[in-house]
């Protein structure tokens, strides 16, 4: 019944119009001279009039297209550029007909299935890796917590004997120093300097351990920028003066208040000024300023030191992130001051950064956001 001309015609029309099969008619030179609607949709109208070989993606020029076209009994996997702008692989079969060659092609479903399976497998693997990453991070956090506990305990236990060394060493120097030879007095002073350095290191360890273990408690109270600076200024001046450096504190807009832990921020300012002084030489200046930028209060400590290279800047605010910079008077520091400053600023919801070019000094800045209720 299907060979009745009207039925055959209907079938042919339907199949040619709707089936996802491309039908291309090639002339004797293998040029596409006609195409069904599906082929025109997939390959674009420009496919007609061009040789089929030109439309096949063949990066390595290994395909003998005329020979393939004349192998009528095989399905060939050929990749063509499509109108959508991406190459797709089709299963082609070629039939010799009275007016040339009829090429019939459909998407290579086997490849689609394989690709889908591969994408799903990759997705599973990616999800598993994500899970492992979170799990590993959790384990690292636990280890870090243990490290902080250990550090806290060790630092706490070391503090007392060092305190004793400093106290009684100080007594000896004060009360019996005159009876010591100059050489012995120098030995004792060296011991005391080393003990002070060790105490500073222990104090920084304790600060870091407390902050990193999430036990940092901010005592928030309303303060102005001037009040915050005023708490740090006397000590900062002493530190600078000791090395013959002028500390310049610039007047600030003192009309706005924000809720901060002023004493912790003063520690940050002292760390930054101390750092600036360490990298300056006698006669140079250090500036301590503040300004409002929109809703953020920005503090800045600027020096005239040697500046910091971009590589060094990236690790400045990490614990022990020592840089290639040398302290100008061979000072010793714990390498924790800037890391502690970062953690305190971040606990306030702020951020800290440095602006510097080698040879042109450095400016350390931190900004503190104003909470909604503090806005004027």
């Amino acid at each position: 019944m299907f060979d009745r001309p009207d039925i055959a015609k209907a079938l042919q029309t339907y199949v040619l119009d709707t089936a996802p099969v491309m039908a291309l008619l090639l002339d004797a030179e293998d040029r596409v001279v006609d195409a069904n609607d599906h082929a025109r949709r997939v390959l674009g109208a420009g496919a007609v009039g061009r040789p089929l070989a030109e439309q096949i993606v063949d990066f390595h020029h290994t395909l003998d297209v005329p020979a393939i076209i004349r192998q009528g009994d095989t399905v060939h996997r050929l990749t063509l550029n499509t109108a959508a702008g991406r190459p797709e692989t089709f299963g082609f079969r070629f039939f010799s007909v009275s007016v040339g060659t009829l090429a019939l092609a459909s998407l290579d479903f086997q490849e689609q299935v394989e690709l889908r399976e591969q994408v799903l497998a990759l997705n599973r693997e990616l999800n598993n890796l994500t899970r492992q990453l979170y799990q590993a991070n959790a384990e690292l956090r636990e280890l870090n917590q243990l490290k902080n506990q250990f550090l806290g305990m060790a630092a706490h236990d070391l503090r007392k004997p060092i305190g004793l060394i400093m106290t009684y060493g100080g007594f000896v120097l004060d009360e019996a120093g005159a009876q010591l030879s100059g050489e012995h007095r120098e030995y004792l002073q060296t011991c005391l300097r080393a003990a002070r350095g060790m105490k500073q290191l222990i104090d920084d360890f304790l600060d870091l351990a407390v902050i990193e273990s999430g036990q940092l408690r901010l005592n928030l109270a309303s303060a102005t920028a001037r009040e915050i600076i005023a708490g740090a200024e006397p000590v900062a001046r002493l530190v600078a003066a000791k090395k013959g450096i002028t500390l310049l504190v610039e007047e600030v807009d003192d009309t706005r208040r924000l809720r901060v832990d002023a004493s912790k921020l003063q520690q940050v300012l002292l760390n930054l000024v101390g750092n600036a002084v360490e990298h300056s030489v006698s006669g140079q200046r250090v500036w301590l300023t503040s300004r409002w930028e929109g809703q953020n209060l920005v503090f800045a400590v600027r020096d005239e030191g040697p500046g910091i290279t971009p590589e060094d800047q990236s690790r400045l605010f990490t614990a022990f992130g020592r840089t290639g910079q040398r302290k100008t008077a061979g000072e010793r520091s714990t390498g924790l001051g800037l890391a502690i400053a970062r953690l305190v600023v971040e606990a306030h919801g702020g951020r800290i950064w440095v602006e510097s070019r080698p040879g042109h000094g450095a400016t350390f800045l931190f900004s503190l956001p104003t909470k909604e209720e503090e806005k004027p």
Partner: protein
Amino acid sequence: MNQPVKPGFAPEEVYRTYLRGLLAHDHQTCRASFLQWLEADAGLRSTYEDLVRRSLYEVGDLWERGRISVATEHLATAISESLLNLTYPRLFAQPRNGKSAVVTCVPNEYHQIGGKMVADLFELNGWRGYFLGANCPVGDVIKLVAAKRPEVVALSAATSFNLAKVVSAATEIRAAFPDVAILVGGQAFRWGGRERVERLPGVRCLTSLGELEAWITEHGKHV
């Protein structure tokens, strides 16, 4: 759901939206519904059981009845699995109790989301839940068990034709580790099979995340 939820949270409505999203391949809608459920304080287990598990069972049913294509079923699973990642910041922040579980899918089982939810539930309850993934050779499971010495090994199977693999995997693990607890479960047991695996010594079949949570509580939740 067994804990109070935020007022105004309509679980059935959120569930239906999520399911429609899965069937329409609409990742964003699913993500919004998933987050809505998570943020409703209904509990992570409820998100897994009442949203993810329920919807995937329904998707599986639709596929079995020829109502959706296998591609849609696969994409629904892929979307759901990617959304589990959203729970991890909360999940892995739980305090640990020093116990651990090794969770895996049996060989030839490519549906891994159920097993992953099991591993996550262990994490949620303070255990370390090591997850080996889909189609895992039993030899690899045995190696990890030897290395981690977990309290329990959990085997997951989603398709019933893999039940025999569950039995053989549990038998091999039992032979290598006479004392480790073995749990089995998954959609494969939906229509039976429990009695077959529970004939093996020290093997329990759990058919829901609720049963699993009860088991975890019984065997030590937090420190």
